[in-house]
């Protein structure tokens, strides 16, 4: 039984944003964070692949192209487990609003796009706490590539070059990220991710997100 499908009983609130790089999720989360801070809420922010325990190792291994789909998946699971136990879980118990830039869904999308068994990776992450609000920023790979690759080529793993889909990093990126997006779209139903159109204006997306968060908080008896 996975915790990801059961509502948690913590005092705090867990919000995560998902989507491929360039979908604007970090911008939206930063705006949300500033607003929550200015309204006097206890907020904590955590992002994918940032745990002290492992993130340097993962970054180095990526640089040297040492990772297989399986080790790629497990190292990110280590990072996630470390942050969950060290940061997310205690903050939720203490009543914080926890803002997570990427969550377990990132692993489900990327690892499965790399050929890892969907049920296997879901089982690996079955200790993850279900977010109160999980927002997915939907974008097509061409638009995302235009945004992030205006002054650089796609990176090796970002382009899925490890899968040998194409020798051209741009072409590989489009195929690989297309697969990732396909996995995200399936999770809209599976996990109730809320899909927003990444091409909408920054303002209109932020308005929607604040509305949704307000309603989540109100349901918990928190006024905002």
């Amino acid at each position, binding site marked *: 039984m996975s915790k990801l499908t059961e509502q948690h009983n913590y005092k705090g609130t867990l919000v995560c944003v998902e989507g491929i790089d360039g979908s604007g999720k970090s911008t939206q989360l930063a705006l949300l964070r500033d607003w929550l801070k200015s309204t006097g809420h206890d907020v904590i922010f955590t992002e994918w692949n940032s745990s*002290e*325990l*492992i993130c340097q*190792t993962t970054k180095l*291994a990526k640089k040297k192209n*040492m*990772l*297989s789909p*399986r*080790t790629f998946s*497990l*190292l990110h*699971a*280590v990072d996630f*487990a*470390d942050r*969950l*136990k*060290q940061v997310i879980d205690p903050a939720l118990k203490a009543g914080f609003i926890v803002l997570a830039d990427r969550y377990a869904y990132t692993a489900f999308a990327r690892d499965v796009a790399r050929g890892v068994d969907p049920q*296997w990776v879901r*089982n*690996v992450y*079955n*200790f993850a706490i279900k977010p109160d609000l999980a927002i997915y920023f939907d974008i097509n790979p061409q638009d995302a590539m235009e945004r992030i690759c205006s002054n650089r080529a796609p990176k090796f793993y970002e382009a899925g070059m490890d899968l040998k889909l194409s020798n051209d990093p741009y072409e590989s990126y489009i195929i690989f990220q297309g697969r990732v997006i396909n996995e995200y779209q399936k999770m809209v139903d599976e996990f109730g991710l809320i899909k927003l159109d990444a091409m909408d204006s920054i303002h209109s997306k932020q308005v929607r997100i604040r509305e949704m968060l307000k309603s989540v908080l109100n349901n918990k008896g928190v006024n905002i």
Partner: protein
Amino acid sequence: MTQFKTKHGYEGLLIVIEGTDGSGKSTQLQLLKKSIQAQSYGVIISEWKTSRLIANVIDDAKERNLLNATTYSLLYAADFADRLENTIIPALKSGFIVLLDRYYYTALARDVVRGQDIEWVKNLYDYAPEPDLIFYLDMPVDVLLKRIIGTTGLNYYESGRDIGFSSDFYKSFEIYQDKCLEQYEKMKSEYNFISIDGTKSIDEIHSIMNHEVQKILDSGVLY
């Protein structure tokens, strides 16, 4: 003699020695390696927690007490995956006899003692090829204690002090190793361990293992 078939479908053989620390695994592996080599077979040894990717991260994290039960499990699983994909499977594919000092049964025992759900741990390793032979060196806890105290001394994680069974080092070690043995005991029949009394002499143990390996080699599976 019936035709022997490998359980994993690769050309080589996968042979595992399991047992707790101080049970004499490494000594036996070296002896087995020598006797197999003497017959002109290709043989390699691969030990637990030696991946180029992650082994030093585990050592470092242990030294600084950074691990919780979940990251402990996952780091070992990553180490295992890296070794499996880069060392073990390529060797098996090219027809080597791969001798393993510990296999995922070690993770099952240790992680479950640390409170992880056994099904969750099994899932982490469910893609691992099934060994052709699994030797288990069975040692009573009091003999183990003496051996370890007399050689390496009590180490933090090997004594399960991260779990908090007891603040007394000796007591903690005893409880931890006892619980690990209990897990191994459960796995004996589930995974068809060839259980060997670890208190027998080095030569006696070697000759039991060698006999089992020889039976497979004599079947001509590697010709």
